[in-house]
């Protein structure tokens, strides 16, 4: 298997400390990058073919090059530029950023400072999901260490450039992973996505030009600078370089985070993780986080890079691979996902607010045996009124599991309708109360 670039020191005691990070050449990439022009750093990242690991797979170097060089306000006064790290990690099936924050916070900080140099930012924010209390504490300690060592502050490594990082905690809302919702949240507002344009590179955090990247994206930057873009680009495909942190979970023998070439096939990835749990038969795989359309067991000879999965009608998304074996009921799995989306829709757009609610109710009704054939056809109709019709891509995400499950496992849905119950459940099965109640103490 290929070399690990980001997670070589996983599970090494003290890997999160500055001392350890320096002992393995930490912050040498920063030293090197500060000796390069901003454009040269951007060029190097472009050449590496690094694509964003947050979900959309946008080329990172290109995103950085979209940042205005010397923005000014209406009065001709220079505007500050901001860098934001998306550590909201909320896409079901995704848990790599948590590993990076816990074990390699300095890699993230170093990647952010290099990016800050490349785009000419004066400040960086790390937006961490609110549930990550311990991860936030660790990150804050690492930022303090980096500041004390002179990597952050009014003169980064003795140079005439001021850059500091602020760690900001969210408060429980999946939608804040969407970058413009994140920016609103960072401004202390409701996490509602913004209409684009203007894009964050023009009007971002606090009205200033802003660049948003995922944790893993920043963590890939030091190795690209130290070892050169060519080495990174040599792994993967022509259009998508490097290794990726795949999060493999569900009915898999050895769940976990695996750093592997981005174009490994899904079949090899599953084998690498010990295969389906208990040697059972595979039923379906969600290859890129909950929003990615499901693949059936026959479709796993596909490479995991962004383009190959897009060609296969799904998406690489966040790298969250959820393995589902023959014992699971696809209708129930999809119903569970739709219940999640129903709960998390921010409610701004009626198509999304109502559509996710209808879909969640419908799937649950089908699972419980109350569905009709007309329901199955109506699902596609509801989805076509959602995807591409709203302010952000959340609505598109909802249609991922809804459409793919019905399309690929229609027979299972029809069996529910015909038998008036879930064929995989015992006759005396009673769905757990929490599904009925949707109860939460916090409502």
């Amino acid at each position, binding site marked *: 298997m290929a070399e690990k670039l980001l997670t070589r020191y996983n599970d090494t005691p003290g890997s999160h400390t500055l001392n350890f990070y320096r002992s393995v050449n930490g912050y040498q990439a920063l030293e090197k990058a500060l000796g390069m022009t901003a454009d040269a750093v951007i060029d190097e990242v472009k050449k590496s073919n690094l694509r964003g690991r947050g979900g959309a797979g946008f080329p990172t170097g290109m995103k950085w090059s979209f940042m205005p060089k010397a923005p000014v306000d209406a009065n001709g006064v220079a505007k500050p530029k901001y860098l934001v790290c998306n550590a909201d990690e909320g896409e079901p099936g*995704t848990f790599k950023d948590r590993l990076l924050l816990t074990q390699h916070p300095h890699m993230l900080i170093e990647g952010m400072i290099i990016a800050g140099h490349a785009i000419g930012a004066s400040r960086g924010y790390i937006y961490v999901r609110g549930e990550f209390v311990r991860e936030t504490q660790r990150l804050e300690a690492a930022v303090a260490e980096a500041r004390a060592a002179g990597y952050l502050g009014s003169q980064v490594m003795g140079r005439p450039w001021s850059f500091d990082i602020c760690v900001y905690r969210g408060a429980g809302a999946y939608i804040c992973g969407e970058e413009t919702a994140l920016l609103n949240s960072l401004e*202390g507002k409701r996490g509602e996505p913004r209409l684009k344009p203007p894009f964050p590179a023009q009007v971002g955090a606090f009205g200033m030009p802003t660049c948003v990247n995922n944790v893993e994206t920043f963590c890939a930057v030091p190795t690209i600078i130290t070892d050169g873009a060519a080495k990174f680009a040599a792994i993967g495909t022509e259009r998508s370089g490097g290794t990726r942190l795949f999060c493999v979970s569900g009915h898999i023998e050895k769940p976990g*985070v695996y750093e592997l070439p981005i174009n490994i096939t899904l079949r090899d990835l599953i084998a690498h993780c010990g295969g389906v749990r208990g040697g059972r038969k595979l039923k379906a795989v969600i290859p890129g986080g909950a929003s990615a359309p499901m693949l059936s067991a026959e479709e796993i000879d596909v490479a995991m890079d962004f383009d190959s999965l897009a060609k296969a009608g799904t998406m690489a998304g966040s790298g969250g691979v959820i393995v589902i074996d023959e014992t699971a009921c696809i209708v129930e799995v999809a119903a569970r996902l739709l219940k999640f989306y129903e709960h998390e829709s921010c409610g701004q757009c009626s198509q999304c607010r109502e559509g996710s609610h209808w879909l969640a109710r419908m799937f649950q009704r089908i699972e419980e045996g109350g569905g009709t054939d007309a329901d199955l056809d109506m699902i596609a109709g509801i989805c076509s009124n959602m995807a591409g019709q709203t302010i952000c891509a959340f609505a598109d995400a909802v249609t991922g599991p809804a459409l793919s499950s019905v399309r690929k496992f229609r027979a299972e849905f029809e069996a529910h309708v015909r038998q008036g119950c879930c064929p995989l459940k015992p006759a005396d099965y009673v769905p*757990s109360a929490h599904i009925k109640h949707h*109860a939460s103490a916090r409502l």
Partner: protein
Amino acid sequence: MIIDQEISQRIDALRTHLPTEQALLLPLLHEMQAKAGWISREAMAEAAQFLKIPLARVVEVATFYTMYNKAPIGKKHLQICTNVTCFLRGSDHLLACLEKRLGIHCGETTADGQYTLSEVECLAACGTAPVMQVNDDYHENLDESSLEGLMNRLDQELKNG
């Protein structure tokens, strides 16, 4: 009054990084909840006054985010993930065990005010599913017996005060 000198100082320290008063709202509500356990209407009014922003701004934000408790909660907040991977690995059964043990439904607090039981969405720990967050800490790779062990420890902690 919830905002004391300590909270006020910690919020002040953020002002160098956060250019608007509104941006201090999320951190302030976190601080207030850490001290008071939940965010009451009075607490929202206090936050509005402290940051000199309209109360409506505070209310709309506090009610948007699920982590701000809008009602009092138990000393131990059991937050079990029931999203897809945890579900595939048995979270529903664990939730049923908890409901039985505590004699409450999901979303409720025990009569003695010790425990609140909630279901939450993916906690980004699916590799070690099923997962439950208790107050600030994650408990991972749970099964029926490790859950029972955890609950016994929590009972003991509560008894010892």
